[in-house]
């Protein structure tokens, strides 16, 4: 997003010559929602280059932009490929390409859920602030709007975009207020613009012809990003970008940085709580700022909590003040969307590795994915070998099982989960043997038989292959069960009864339950 914005800014600069086009574009923008992108770009262009002859192009653009968000929020509109201004179209196309090429999905955008509402409210503040040069208040208002919705919500392109587009003005104003140089502001706004445009672009049909320009813009944005040290792609890079941005823009508050980072990271909707950072109101005027802050906070928090971005298995989170520095280390990463997606993927994998670390004993000391995987592989192999060994043991052991033994064994296993049954029951080989004579399905009848010393008929499941026991767990004739109810009660606790019910679950359970309730 940052790069997109940067790109857009550059494009806007390039389009400065085509003031007429922008003018027409601005007028046309009022008509459609997607034109908000154009409005934003036009707005930026005009603002920076004074290319517009309009007395207050910013205001006009904003007003038009403001009006459209409300309309745009209603639904997504196709990008006006036949836009009044080819340059605008190209720019938007480029932005769309940035969105498309990058792994930027609406979900990656974190925006407050009430974008529409905010948009309208922002509109008011925008319009009011339009009269005066962009000021901090505007951003403040916008920021307040945003701050009201701190929850991170996946961006839905159209409604969110409209709001973001609407907030550009605030963002721009804020930047100006904060003394951000125009170039930086352009970059920052571009980031914001790119974000929104990207969001919109995902929903907007971008002409193929625009894609080339977008890619060019991407390169520009990359360049600018590198200048700003804003890495949009990696999640961790976001914090890096944040730090880098802050370094480069001393005047910009942390919020701006967060904003930029959020722009960079908007693609990544980290589920982590964003509680950590709340940008200053000034910085939060734009939705993007909020998103950025949120994502930045998330990133920072993530950095603090997991520190996974750079150190795969490093359990030490960086100190909060080092977040930016920590992030900066990753700034060298590529900023394209592929890297972003890669980073998300890596994060997921790290999560799972941590989970596995808890599962596999003795993995706590091991750090690093490779070693962890080795440990996991060894553990799985050892478990499989244990199963084989135990099955061999079972094969060699004379399994003279009878119903009593079966019941006791089941009882013990259910009672003492994880513990070996050593002295819980009187070991009775006859019981074991007795149990073995019965159909597997008759888990319960075996107990009955034990108590009654009767043999229940094998209800062989005709389809029951040698080992297809699970299907064979059918409730056999329940006659035997009824007889053994009193004895069964003595054998079975609630666990066993429930298990039996479950074991015979394939059959209508009511019969089982009725017998053993």
């Amino acid at each position, binding site marked *: 997003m940052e790069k997109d914005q940067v790109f857009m800014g550059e494009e806007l600069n390039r389009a400065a010559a085509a003031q007429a086009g922008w003018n027409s574009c601005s007028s046309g923008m009022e008509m459609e929602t997607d034109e908000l992108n154009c409005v934003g770009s036009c707005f930026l262009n005009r603002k920076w280059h004074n290319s517009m002859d309009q007395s207050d192009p910013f205001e006009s653009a904003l007003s038009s932009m403001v009006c459209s968000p409300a309309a745009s929020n209603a639904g997504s509109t196709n990008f006006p490929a036949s836009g009044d201004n080819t340059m605008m179209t190209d720019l938007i196309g480029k932005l769309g390409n940035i969105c498309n090429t990058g792994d930027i999905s609406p979900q990656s955008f974190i925006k407050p859920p009430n974008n529409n509402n905010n948009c309208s409210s922002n509109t008011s503040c925008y319009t009011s602030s339009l009269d005066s040069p962009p000021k901090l208040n505007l951003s403040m208002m916008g920021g307040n709007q945003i701050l009201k919705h701190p929850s991170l919500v996946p961006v839905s392109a159209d409604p969110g975009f409209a709001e973001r587009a609407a907030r550009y003005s605030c963002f721009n104003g804020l930047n100006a207020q904060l003394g951000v140089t125009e170039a930086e502001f352009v970059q920052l706004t571009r980031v914001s613009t790119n974000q929104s445009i990207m969001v919109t672009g995902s929903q907007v049909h971008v002409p193929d012809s625009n894609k080339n320009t977008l890619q060019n813009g991407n390169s520009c944005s990359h360049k600018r990003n590198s200048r700003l040290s804003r890495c949009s792609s990696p999640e961790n890079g976001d914090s890096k970008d944040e730090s880098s941005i802050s370094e480069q823009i001393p005047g910009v508050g942390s919020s701006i940085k967060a904003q930029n980072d959020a722009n960079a990271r908007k693609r990544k909707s980290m589920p982590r709580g964003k509680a950590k950072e709340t940008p200053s109101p000034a910085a939060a005027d734009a939705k993007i700022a909020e998103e950025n802050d949120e994502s930045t906070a998330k990133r920072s928090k993530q950095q603090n909590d997991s520190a996974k971005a750079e150190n795969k298995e490093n359990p030490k989170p960086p100190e909060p003040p080092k977040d930016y520095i920590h992030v900066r280390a990753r700034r060298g990463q590529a900023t394209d969307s592929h890297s972003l997606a890669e980073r998300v*993927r890596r994060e997921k*994998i790290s*999560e*799972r*590795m941590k*989970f*596995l670390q808890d*599962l596999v004993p003795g993995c706590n000391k091991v750090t690093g*994915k*490779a070693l962890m*995987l080795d440990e*996991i*592989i060894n*553990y*799985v192999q050892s*478990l*499989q070998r*244990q*199963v*084989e060994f*135990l*099955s*061999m*043991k*079972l*094969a*060699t*052991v*004379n*399994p*003279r*099982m009878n119903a009593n033994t*079966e019941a006791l*064994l*089941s009882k*013990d296993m259910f009672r003492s*989960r994880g513990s070996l*049954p*050593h002295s819980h029951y009187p*070991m009775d*080989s006859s*019981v*074991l043997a007795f*149990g*073995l004579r019965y*159909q*597997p399905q008759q*888990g319960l009848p075996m107990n009955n038989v034990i108590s009654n010393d009767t043999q229940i008929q094998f209800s062989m499941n005709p389809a029951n*292959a*040698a*080992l*297809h*026991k*699970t299907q*064979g*767990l059918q409730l056999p004739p329940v006659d035997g069960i009824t007889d053994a109810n009193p004895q069964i009660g003595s054998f079975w606790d609630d666990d066993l009864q*429930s*298990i039996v019910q*479950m*074991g015979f679950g394939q059959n209508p359970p009511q019969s089982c339950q009725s017998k053993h309730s």
Partner: protein
Amino acid sequence: MMNTPQQVKNPSSSLKSRFITRFLGALTKITAEDPISSSSPTRIFQRYRRIKVASNKSMAYSVRSRRIWSRAMLSRFRSRRSAFSGRRSSVKTTNCTTSPPPALIKVTINEKKTAKGGLDMQTDELRELVPGGEAMDVCNLLDETAHYIKCLTTQVQVMRKIVDFYHLSK
């Protein structure tokens, strides 16, 4: 996404209880069908294989189709069954775990470690170990591995209990 490492304690729905029920039934069936008195190595080996398959099958059925690895395992069982329908001995002999011989795995690990860096080799090894792992991406593979480990530990637990039970009963 991730299963909790703790098994469900509710017996009526616990994976462990389901496995116990199934496996005990299978075990009794195997021992019933096979004369225990015969102690020829062949019979013992056959019984061993049947028990091993029964154990894996019981666990796979207890998990049903909730997991990729269990689905892969069940499909493998079913394909083998259908391929060798009528030839139970073949079915039994061919039913085996998906893991290659441990010794081979070890060698493979060492070789791969020296071959090249990265996690690809370990990932491939893990794919070999976990049923159905070949078709999974790393993310899912780790998920499945976690659940597979959990189920394997349950299997080992139950079988060890049974073995101890048998020993104590002697």
